[in-house]
């Protein structure tokens, strides 16, 4: 257990999911700093802006697939090009409602994705992932 609690980023266009997830993380005391992005584009911008300040970079990213504008896959594609410049090891989990096997396989084949988590995500699941 690090003395400093991890920074968690939630990338999802579903506002209710954002709220519920943040509530759960806070109530479990998993993190004191939760970053929330409505789509991939916003998240990418944040990462780019904080390349020089790795202490602001998230330790975990919970990434939705289906988002308007820049979806999860597009985020991962861009992330792959910039990750070497990020001075931090970020663990990315895909969080989606899609039970489409093509999505699951695609996520498993992506080396930057730690795991594919099906919604809804329970508090216990968050604890397990962040622990």
């Amino acid at each position, binding site marked *: 257990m690090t003395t400093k609690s991890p920074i968690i980023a939630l990338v999802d266009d579903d506002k209710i999911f954002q709220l519920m997830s943040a509530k759960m993380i806070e109530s479990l005391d998993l993190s004191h700093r939760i970053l929330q992005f409505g789509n991939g584009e916003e998240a990418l911008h944040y990462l780019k802006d904080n390349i020089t300040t790795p202490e602001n970079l998230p330790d975990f990213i919970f990434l939705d697939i289906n988002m*308007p504008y820049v979806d999860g896959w597009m985020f991962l594609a861009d992330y792959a090009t910039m990750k070497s410049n990020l001075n931090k090891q970020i663990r990315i989990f895909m969080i989606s409602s899609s039970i489409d096997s093509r999505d699951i396989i695609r996520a498993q084949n992506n080396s930057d994705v730690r795991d594919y988590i099906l919604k809804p995500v329970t508090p216990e699941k968050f604890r397990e992932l962040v622990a």
Partner: protein
Amino acid sequence: MSARKKKVSKKRAKKDGRARSKKAKAPVASTHQNTLKALHESQKRLSLALNSAHMGIWDWNIKTNSLWLSDTVHKIFGTSKRTFDGTMEFLRKLTHEEDQKMLSEEIRKAFETDKKYFVQHRIKKANGEIRWIEVVGKVFRNRKGKVLRMVGSVQDITEIKLSNQERKDWEARYKLIAASASQVVYDYNLKTGKIQWSGTIQEVLGYNQQEMNDINSWEKLIHRDDRKKVMARLEIAMQGLRPFDMKYRFKTKSKSYIHVHDKGIFLANEEGQAYRMLGTMQDISDKIQIEEDLIESNRFKESMESAMPGMLYVYDLKKQVIIYVNHNITRAIGYDWEEIEGMGNNFLHNLIHPEDLSRIPRWSNEPSRTVKSAEYRVRTKSDEWRWFYSRDTAFQRDQKGNVTQIIGIAQDITDRKMIEAELVESEARFRTLQEASFGGIGLHDKGIIIDCNQGLSAITGYSREELVGNDGLKLIAPEYRELVMHNILSGYEKPYDVEGIHKDGTHYSLEISGKNIPYKGRDIRVTEFRDITNRKLIEQKILEQNARLQAITIDLKRKNDQLEEFTQIVSHNLRSPIGNILSLLTFMETSTSEEDKAQLMSYLKESTSNALTTLEELNEVLKIKQNRNIEKQLLEFDKVFNQVRTMVSAKIAECSAEVKSDFSKAPTIVYPNIYLESIFLNLLTNALKYRKPDQKPLIELRTYRDKKDIILEVKDDGLGINLDRYGHQIFKLQKTFHKHPESRGIGLFMIKNQIEAMGGEISIKSKENIGTTFFINFNKHHTHDD
């Protein structure tokens, strides 16, 4: 003949044995004149000795005319002492009539001359049997010379006499034959080596007695090739004392060889060894020649018969029997002559196939030289049917001139028959094949048609009569004739395509293939014509069908993609709000603050509403998918578009957009009205929505035709979109590419489904900050029309 000679030689051997014993016990008469008693006694003794030698003693007292006979004499004469009257008269009566005179004469001679009495004569025994006896006697006289007694012996010499007689006969016979038939008689003495020849030797052999008086000179004259054999046979005959009979070539004085027939016998001496060879040599050259001719002619006949390919036979029509058949019958049907003969008049029924009996020619009074032939099956001994071909002609006729016997030759033609049958069959097969063939078949000799089938007539339009005998090249388009002729001459055997000409002059696609074959002794060509017009059409159809199948495959794949997408939509878009609802409910359960609860409740409402909206949207899409047979009508683009334009006129006015439309190039379409409205509405609002914020938008709509397809183009000068980045998402449900408040992403997905349900296609061209153009091809996929 030789057997009889053997007998003779045996008898002779017997005789010789007797002769020896006779000599050893020669009769000795006591000559004591006055002592009769002593004489009687000595006679008794002698008689005992002579008994064993089967020799009898007799004593005849002339003065008293009383005769005494020993027991053996009685045995010889077949008399007994009891019936004997003691007179010479008794014996005289038993003497053979023919010999009585001779006997009286000999007795008289003996009395007169005092010569030793020696007589061989025949007697007739009491039982009637004729025997030869030999009587030896001596006359006893007183001082005055008067005959007092006569004493002697008697012996049965029948056996000896007969064999002597036979020998005499034999010799006489040979001499007789020798005299009449250029024969020489020889008598060869084995001890001296000398040969005595009969008088005809000079006439027959050309030599005189002196030139051939020894065995060596004779031997040298035997032909060298025959000599060894002759000497060997003589040696055998000599050892076995057997007669010999041989033929050999003999050199005459004139140096020419004659064929001689040499027959003879060896005579044995008392020791049983050959000492004489008696025989005859006859010139049989003429006979040999005849025999040779005969043998030659027989051989000729036999070889003729066996060389003949079939059975030669003579058949009696009345008796219904085979009266002659040559050896070939055995080879032909397995039976020999005896078996055929044994069948008698069952011959025909036994051997000829019942079905073929009627084929056997009938004869009456046909003129000579009439030949009747027939083919029929004959059952062989091994129970196999073989075909024969016979040719018969008259052999014998009765007084009325009716044929009674026929002579003929029957040949085995089974192989020919089988080949014929095969030929007939293969020809029939060929014709069947020809007629059964859908193509036209022509037999031709370098183009000139010899024969053809109905198919060729059908294809070319010419009748069979018009085709046969004519140049088949005329059936080919002129530009191909050189190729066809070249293929005929080179024997090309693969099918190739040319152009044919019908009788009416029209051309057609033709495939021809030929093959050179031997036919009735000629090498001709079979060519098959195949009208491939239909095939070409079918090929075309297949290609079209293929294209259609490919289209269907693409369409199916498209449908499949849509279905998968729909599944994903259902999975994602329904799971998301319901997942949220679940989370919210969990929180509500644990929440204590009223404020929090109220907040959660509002979220719950929103999520529920989202889920409902999504359900409605999906329902909408499902309707489209299910409603493929939605009613279509003839629509004017202009009319429909103006209605839609009115619907969104507020928005157009709001952003001062300029909307231009030109549907003149394709003014109408048969399409569901609501779909066309939906397409116009969504594309128009889409263009207005993504306008550049700082400029008045220009929206241009037009229709036109691309080949048969009707295309609608909707072009704006709005924000545009990076297709490389977002192209894959454009027509997906709930995808928005702009952070625009009204973006819900339902419109493009909806119209895409509508367009595709009607067999059309929607595509997009766009550049960021330049604008976007949508293309709708209403008729892209024809397969679902009608």
